[in-house]
């Protein structure tokens, strides 16, 4: 029975001590500890949330970047294509121009050559004519240098001429 009989003195000390440690721990331990734990949990929560948000933003940013990149690529493609076209056009034009110029030059050259040739032929003709006349003159001079010769020739001619 001794064991299950509450002792007044011990109950008194128990109550007083328990009340004191309860009040002291409440003020100096439990309140700050629970507050700190809660604050830490909140800060961890918010940190996780902001990390998640940052990840989301990163994702969006990445998507945006990809879009911009694609746009840039498309733009550069168009630019390149344009440039290529322009180049082709320029080359083609240059070619045409060069050809026509060449043609023109060739034609001009041909004309000049023709003119030159004609001039040369004329010159040659003239010279040949002059030369022929000179030669003929010399031959005639030779043939008609004496009277006998002139008479012989006229005789020949006369012979040929038959008065039919």
């Amino acid at each position, binding site marked *: 029975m*001794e*064991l*299950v*009989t*509450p*002792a*007044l*003195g*011990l*109950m*008194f*000390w*128990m*109550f007083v*001590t*328990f009340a*004191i*440690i*309860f009040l*002291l*721990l*409440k003020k*100096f*331990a*439990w*309140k*700050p*500890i*629970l507050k*700190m*734990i809660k*604050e*830490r949990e909140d*800060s961890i929560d918010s940190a996780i949330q902001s990390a998640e948000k940052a990840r989301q933003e990163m994702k969006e940013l990445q998507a945006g970047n990809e879009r911009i990149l694609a746009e840039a690529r498309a733009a550069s493609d168009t630019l390149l294509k344009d440039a290529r076209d322009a180049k082709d056009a320029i080359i083609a034009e240059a070619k045409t121009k060069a050809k026509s110029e060449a043609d023109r030059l060739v034609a001009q050259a041909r004309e000049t050559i023709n003119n030159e040739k004609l001039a040369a032929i004329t010159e040659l003709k003239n010279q040949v004519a002059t030369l022929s006349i000179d030669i003929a003159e010399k031959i005639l001079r030779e043939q008609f240098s004496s009277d006998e010769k002139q008479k012989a020739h006229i005789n020949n001619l006369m012979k040929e001429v038959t008065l039919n």
Partner: protein
Amino acid sequence: MSNKINIFSVKNFCFSLFVAVLTLLPAKTFAYEPIEEENNHDEVIDTVSAAKHAEGNSTAFNAGEMIIEHIGDSHQWHLWGDHGHAVHIPLPVILWTDKGLEIFSSSKVEHHEDIYEGTHYKYMLHNEHIEVVDNFGNVDEEATAKIKDFSITKNALTIIVSALIMLLIFIKVAKSYKRREGMAPKGLQSFMEPLILFIRDDVAKTSIGEKKYERYMPYLLTAFFFIFFNNLMGLIPIFPFGANLTGNISVCLVLAGITLVVTLISGNGHYWRHIFAMPGVPIPVLIILTPIELIGVVLRPFVLMIRLFANITAGHIIALAFFSLIFIFGEKSTGAGYGVSVVSIAFTVFMGFLELLVAFLQAYVFTLLSAIYIGAAVEEGHHEHEHHVEKGHEATHVIA
């Protein structure tokens, strides 16, 4: 005399066995192991003294007497030695008599025949009770009934020691929370945090509810750690620990009483209506039901008290009983004493581990049930939830 020597060699044998067991065990994994071992060891010493005491009185070793002496309260703190030349720490005796306060050291009435002449009466210590006596040691029953014993007994001192330890530990922990704000817990703080979170999340939040639990956290935490620390301290046999405090009915009564008071103060209209006039119950039935509910209000903390008291006391009794076996057999034959000691120690080590579990479990059960009772008192909800709470309550009864 030869018996005395034998008993001492049994003690030495036990001690060397403990040392052997200790060296075989990984130190860290069984952090509490040495405590447990020493607990056993100390009990051996105590048993020795009890046995010697018995021998001195030329009677056989009385296990029951020895065990009751060990789990009960005392006006002095017995360290070692037998009754003839025992080493005690005398504790102050504080008496509130009908004539006024009386304070003296328990060393004045230490021995069996000591009579201390106080200011108002003459006192004698008989079976740990201070009794008023006349010059010849005859007890004055009438005057004895009038004195109130407020002595700082072994248990009262243990309460104060455990209170100081708790203050030291938790104020230190609170400081490290302030110092390491927002950082991960470290050291003692990281040891206590899981327990605090356990009480908060698994006891208070689930039993009282998210909205109201915060108000009761300081009480639940104080009660949990007070019981837990004292359960553990009860397993450490060296001064200033080793008192069977949480296995003391007065201590359990105060703790359960506080839970009752907290429950009654917190009780809202919903709670009282369910006690005095359960909604939906016909009046004739209420005549039976209301007294049952009223008894239930008191019965719950009463069971809370008995559970803690019985569990912790039983643990101490079992450990002591195993050691008593050694001396019971040792009285018959020295060899049998040696033989049984091996078994006894093995069982006590096993019980020690079990007691570590019980130390935590009982602190948890006490706190959980307190939280459930408070939860039922502050609950606003409807009927179904209450049944749920009751079910949880039943389940924990099974655990206990």
